[in-house]
């Protein structure tokens, strides 16, 4: 039903596997050598080991426990202890729907994956984890657009919002040598895709227009850190 982000595409390189949690669903997200991304239940069908502890070999994910290899369709195709055996078709990882769009990896654990449409010409800035609910995190990012904009003496505008994505426009960076955000005719767009890890943890995956400069992106990264502090103070906890 709900499609949510789990990572910036940049942060999952080829031959890497990572753990991600989405509304309390524990998953292993991995990218094959040729670049195919998969999101699976974080559980090896053999002995229940977390597959996020495993490793990628070519187009397969191997479990760290007994080395069972699963291909991109989730089918087990190699068991090291029985190298001659063709594993039964029933040995299969539990797959979730996953797609990559606008530099973000999106997953729906219960249905079809349909990410919010964002421009494709963006660059990855960072992912920042916040110890509060998704609603409080979203509110904090919105509050800070006027309370403490990305750069001083400017307005950061909320252009659009959905439960999982905030789109902002930021017209001015402080001391930017390349005054991209200063260019009123071509302001920087900022996209904040929110991931509900669980009721008390949210991750904000942040991207910005391609023409945002290095200085802009660093200002944005620091701003996100400030918003995090604000959001966590408002729930009276840093943990």
């Amino acid at each position: 039903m709900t499609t949510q982000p789990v990572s910036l595409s940049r942060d999952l390189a080829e031959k890497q596997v990572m753990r991600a949690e989405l509304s309390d669903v524990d998953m292993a997200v991995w990218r094959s050598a040729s670049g195919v991304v998969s999101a699976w239940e974080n559980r090896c069908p053999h002995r229940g080991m977390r597959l996020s502890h495993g490793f990628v070999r070519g187009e397969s994910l191997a479990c760290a426990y007994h080395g069972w290899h699963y291909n991109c369709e989730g089918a087990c195709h190699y068991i090291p202890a029985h190298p001659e055996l063709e594993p039964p078709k029933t040995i299969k990882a539990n797959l979730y729907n996953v797609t990559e769009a606008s530099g973000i990896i999106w997953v729906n654990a219960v249905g079809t994956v349909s990410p919010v449409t964002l421009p494709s010409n963006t660059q990855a800035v960072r992912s920042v984890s916040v110890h509060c609910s998704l609603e409080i995190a979203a509110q904090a990012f919105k509050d800070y657009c006027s309370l403490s904009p990305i750069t001083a003496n400017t307005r950061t505008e909320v252009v659009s919002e959905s439960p999982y994505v905030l789109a902002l426009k930021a017209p001015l960076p402080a001391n930017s040598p390349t005054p991209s955000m200063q260019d009123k005719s071509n302001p920087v767009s900022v996209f904040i895709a929110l991931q509900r890890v669980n009721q008390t943890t949210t991750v904000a995956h942040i991207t910005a227009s391609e023409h945002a400069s290095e200085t802009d992106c660093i200002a944005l990264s620091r701003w996100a850190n400030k918003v995090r502090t604000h959001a966590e103070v408002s729930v009276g906890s840093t943990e």
Partner: protein
Amino acid sequence: MSFTLHDYVLSGNCYKVRLLAQILGVAYTVKPVDFHPGKAHKTPEFLALNPHGTLPVLESDNTLLTDSSAMLVWIAQQFDTTHTWWPTNDAHRLALTVQWLGFSAKLTESIGQLRLHTMLNRPADAATLNTLSTENLRELENHLCEQSIRGLAFLTGDQPTVADIACFAYSALSPDAGIEHTLYPAIRGWLHRIRCLEGFLTMPGIYEAHETRNEHTAAS
């Protein structure tokens, strides 16, 4: 000039020294110390060597060191012919290296202590250590995010220094203390780059980068 390392296999601070020595291809003598459960680092014999009763201890002909950061500097200065691990010919990077060596001590005091508490039941205020560990990992994550925006792969620039080794150990071992890397993507990328360095050495809790090995590729 080689050296002797008084070592405990599970100690992150001892591991830093073994890791740099391995990367630089330096041969040395290991003297294992029964830190747990034997508390051999508190015996009169050991205290005669190091009155602080801490590990590691590095001994060579004219040097006795009891601080792991100092050991990293000594080893790099002594054996690194490229002068990149202790970049004495670059004031900026040298100063940043010292700055992050200082930060590595904070990781030992937070994650290192929490790990001792979690693994060996050392009495500690776990909640406070957990908050401190999170603060320190966030500081590191913030910095590595900015480095990645600048296109720089390591703490002080495009090449690793002794500061990367010093900060690597307890960052990589944080799952032992109950803090996973899931929420720290920039740290995860940096840990992986260090694990891929030529001559990388593992320890219990820090594994090799399996995916970079090529031995078996199953026919699909």
